[in-house]
């Protein structure tokens, strides 16, 4: 009977690297499909930044310029930041809070799933949606906004924005551990919308009131948008090293908080 199989050795139980890679791949594939099929997610997270960009960057002000950079180019960087932030926060926090609060994460934890695969899938999925938004903005900007840059600049801007998904995914994981299934979406909006506004993602930074510009200095989206703007020649403030440092520091703090939440859940699980 099953006693025979009790003598399986350790090596038989360990997965091959290919098997592990397959798990990560499948976990990511299904996480992506899961979100792709949720119309609320795709409609709000993908279409808002694109709609805003079309409206404010292409329809209304396409011939204006800020600090020598055309508005369609400038807003590609800021709405790109806005889109990446939304896709990453919603892609991680909402799902995690719901999986935790409603028992699904326990089913996963009781299975032999490598725990890290779960987080990996969420972060990569957020990056894929972020990249989709950024590419859509690029296409619109080039086609309808007369955006012209060397391909290298496009690649650099793409890289900065998609890498920018990481701090907000980390923030999303932390939020997901400290909110419940029902409170997560409003909490995300409470963070997402005011932060976007104060960081100059909707209205260009120099048009914000002085007080808000002071607040922006401590907000991560401000720093990501400044990195993106510096690629298109419109980053007029601190050095890029400062922006990277703030974003990396912020990511570390968020991961630390997520880790506290993770351990808290391991130790006591109600319901």
């Amino acid at each position: 009977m099953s006693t025979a199989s009790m003598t399986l050795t350790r090596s038989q139980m360990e997965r091959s690297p290919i098997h592990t890679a397959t798990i990560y791949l499948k976990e990511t594939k299904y996480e992506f499909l899961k979100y792709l099929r949720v119309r609320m997610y795709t409609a709000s997270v993908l279409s808002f930044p694109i709609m805003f960009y079309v409206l404010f960057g292409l329809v209304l002000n396409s011939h204006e310029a800020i600090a020598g950079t055309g508005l369609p180019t400038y807003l590609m960087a800021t709405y790109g930041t806005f889109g990446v932030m939304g896709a990453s926060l919603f892609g991680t926090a909402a799902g995690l809070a719901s999986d935790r609060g409603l028992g699904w994460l326990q089913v996963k934890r009781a299975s032999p799933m490598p725990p890290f695969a779960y987080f990996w899938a969420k972060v990569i999925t957020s990056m894929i949606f972020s990249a989709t938004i950024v590419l859509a903005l690029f296409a619109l900007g080039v086609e309808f906004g007369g955006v012209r840059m060397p391909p290298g600049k496009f690649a650099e801007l793409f890289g900065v924005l998609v890498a920018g998904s990481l701090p907000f995914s980390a923030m999303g994981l932390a939020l997901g551990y400290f909110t419940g299934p029902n409170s997560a979406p409003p909490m995300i909006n409470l963070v997402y919308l005011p932060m976007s506004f104060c960081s100059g993602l909707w209205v260009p930074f120099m048009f914000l009131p002085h007080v808000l510009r002071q607040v922006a200095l401590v907000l991560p989206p401000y720093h990501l948008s400044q990195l993106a703007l510096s690629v298109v020649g419109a980053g007029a403030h601190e050095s890029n090293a400062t922006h990277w440092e703030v974003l990396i520091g912020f990511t570390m703090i968020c991961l630390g908080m997520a880790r506290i939440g993770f351990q808290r859940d391991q130790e006591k699980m109600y319901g």
Partner: protein
Amino acid sequence: MIEAREQNGNCSSSRSESNVASLESVNKNYGPIRALRGVNLAIRAGEIVALLGPNGAGKTTAVKLLLGLMPPNRGKVRVFGADPTNPENRMRTGAMLQVGRVPETLRVREHVDLFSSYYQKPMPAQDVLAASGLEKIAGRKYAELSGGQKQRVLFALAICGDPDLLFLDEPTVGLDVEARRLLWDEIRALVDRGKTVLLTTHYLQEADALADRVVVINQGEIIAEGTPTEIKVQTSGKKIRCITRINLQTLHQLPGVTEVKEDREAIEIHTSDAERVVRELLARDERLSGLEVTSAGLEEAFLALTRDSARNGDSD
């Protein structure tokens, strides 16, 4: 109460060897709530054990401890001779837990595909779907399934890794009679294939239909253990109905009485010892009339068992 003393019992060596999973003097608290108190439970290879108890008895807590989802406050949890959080154990166990929400936009086949990928030697997807009765609805999204079908998907996820040991936490809760019987057949098929199963339920009938051994748990303590037949004997309560002038207070003190109710002009008495109660009633009230004695329902019988233990517990 039956306590398995593994350490110094005379048959301990042979028994503990074949124990697939065990709780040894386990306490588990949630803040001030004592969910499990000194629980000893051993599951042997190839048997199907039903952990039977009302809601809040500690059944789910016991399962979660055995799955290594949380640590006990005191005592020892062993699965396959190791700590339950051991990753190798997870390869050899499958679990069906009570879930509030399963990702709804994934299809049945996709859920099975993902969970199968976690295991070293999973069952072929087609076999999993067949064994769970999901073949015809494999292409449907989870959100589009009925309650019974959803339970079967969770069942499929528990068996897809072809594990040696299965934990099924209230597998049939909320199902209609037909869906329940279907799942029973599927659980029986597992045991025929040599699997070890711990299932929790609050239906005595379900424990009776499936289990080799029933462990009754109430308020965090194990109050009885035995074959389904033994448990049924212990819970063979009767309902006595009659018209009498004996006051309720006195009736409560008759042997084995668990409940006394007024029902229109008559009185209803639940007891585990109908013969003695009837004798007492007739002796005390010559004008007693309308006497009826019927078997209590299984649920009532079970209620009697848990109340008895509560009473014994108070006098300890």
